[in-house]
């Protein structure tokens, strides 16, 4: 299982902002899409990530945080994933490095975003699938031999 398997059933693209946009714009986007992070892009290329945490951190000590721009608050050192990255490695790296949102790029171009929640759910569904296969088999056995 890899990142592509998550993106396949996640219609929404990553929600993006430009670095020069205001934090007010960013908050509106987070609210409108009911999400926790935005990818800052120049063209198709991700240059940073802005999470609700980054904003909270700033708001805690700066009353005028609204006036700042995305570039001031975003994390620039973004780790990105690729569609064929295995989920086991991705899960490990995200937990280890405390990354909650992973922008996904294909040949440098942003194509989506997966959250740690998506990764955990995909792994859980994977194990659940094995269990459900066995359960279906058990239920079938009660019905006698296969037709």
């Amino acid at each position, binding site marked *: 299982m890899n990142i592509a398997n998550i993106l396949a059933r996640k219609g929404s693209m990553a929600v993006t902002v430009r670095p020069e946009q205001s934090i007010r714009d960013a908050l509106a986007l987070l609210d409108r899409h009911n999400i926790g992070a935005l990818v800052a892009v120049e063209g198709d290329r991700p240059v940073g990530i802005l999470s609700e945490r980054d904003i909270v951190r700033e708001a805690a000590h700066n009353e005028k945080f609204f006036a700042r721009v995305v570039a001031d608050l975003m994390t620039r050192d973004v780790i990105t994933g690729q569609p064929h990255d295995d989920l086991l490695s991705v899960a490990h790296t995200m937990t280890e490095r405390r990354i909650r949102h992973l922008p996904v790029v294909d040949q440098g171009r942003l194509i989506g975003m997966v959250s740690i929640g998506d990764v955990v759910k995909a792994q859980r569904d994977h194990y659940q699938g094995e269990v459900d296969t066995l359960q279906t088999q058990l239920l079938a056995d009660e019905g006698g031999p*296969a037709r």
Partner: protein
Amino acid sequence: MTPLIGTPERPLRAAIIGAGPTGFYTADHLLRNARVVEVDLFDRLPTPYGLVRLGVAPDHQKIKFVTNVFDKVAATPRFRFYGGVEFGKDITLADLKAHYHQIVYCTGAQTDRRMGIPGEDLSGSHPATEFVAWYNGHPDYRDCTFDLTQERVAVIGVGNVAVDVVRILCRTAEELATTDITDYALEALRKSRVKEVYLLGRRGPAQAAFTNPEVKELGELADADVTARPEEVELDPLSRAAVERSQDRATQKKVEILKAYARRQPTGKSRRLTLRFLVSPVELIADGAGGVAALRLVRNELYATSTGALQPRATGHFENLPVGLVFRSVGYRGVPLPGVPFNESWGVILNDKGRVLDSDTKQPIVGEYAAGWIKRGPTGVIGTNKPDAAETVECMFEDLASGAVLEPAHPEAAAAEALVRQRQPNYFSYADWLKLDAIETERGRAQGRPRLKFTSIDEMLAALGR
């Protein structure tokens, strides 16, 4: 105000397209709900169960018992099966919109992923999808031919499908004769001259997609020795670190199994199966008559991406592997349905958690849903489709609650049946299928086999006296 939908007076009418495991799980989730739901399950084939009948290997009969559970779903009074009715041909989206409140696409992945290398289409090169459909008796593939006079065969990819393919190639006719493999495939494989079979992985043993019970079975074949190259199953430093870090028992075990294969000495069996790793085919070399003479392979090394995933990278080392027959088992791929938005990148219906999305606005389209392989891509075992279908059905009931359903002009079961009858007078009901099933099983019993499949629609019609 219109009366509530989902009541005995006004049942929710749902059409499910595709009677594979996902179609049945979806039907089950719908029918178990407190709301009154009527389900019509369509399949382009007369026979239900999708890949459980036409994908799962014939020498894996036990797993096919799951169909008992699907039969129980089909026995529900508010369930109907319309076999031999194809979406996009016999019935259209407009037809369904006129008869149902909700439509769920569960059409699976009907074709193969292309590799995009020169020589892929030489006559001795086939997608595994076709071979699998052929030996299992899919009516569309019964006339395929494979040159089993070749002694050397390569199977590209190391997923469970590739393992199925090499196992079927390596089994003896006696082993196969107790399965429900089709008669024509049994005859062809009985005459097979295949001696050397190669299974080719582009990454290392720790990254192989096949699962442990499947790879273990390769070591227990009656008349085929299994082997691997010691230097290819030895883990490189990156893989070793990844395996240690993840403490993943299954992967550790997999590597142990493969190392044990590398230590095995040939025991003089008639066939030899060699598992290779860290090689990518870059070209199929022609033999001058349009067939395959060899596979050109490049040796790979692994590198870690930014998320720590290990991916293959070509080195400058090449080799030619002489083979006359090639099966490409690099994954299935969904095909678009007429009028339904498609996501070309992943080969799935464009969806969010199962809600079909409009291609332009990326907003949900009222009344259309997807589940299973056509929703998330061609991975996962039979049971994986159960939670997947549950997620889609949850969206369906959420939307019903908020009133976002279609408003069909003819929401009566009888109207839908009349439409099907008109479009496809020869459709197959579930009762028809159960009759065919009984005949297939009976014919099999006479030969000591689980069943003898019908492999053409004409045969099926004739068996029902039509």
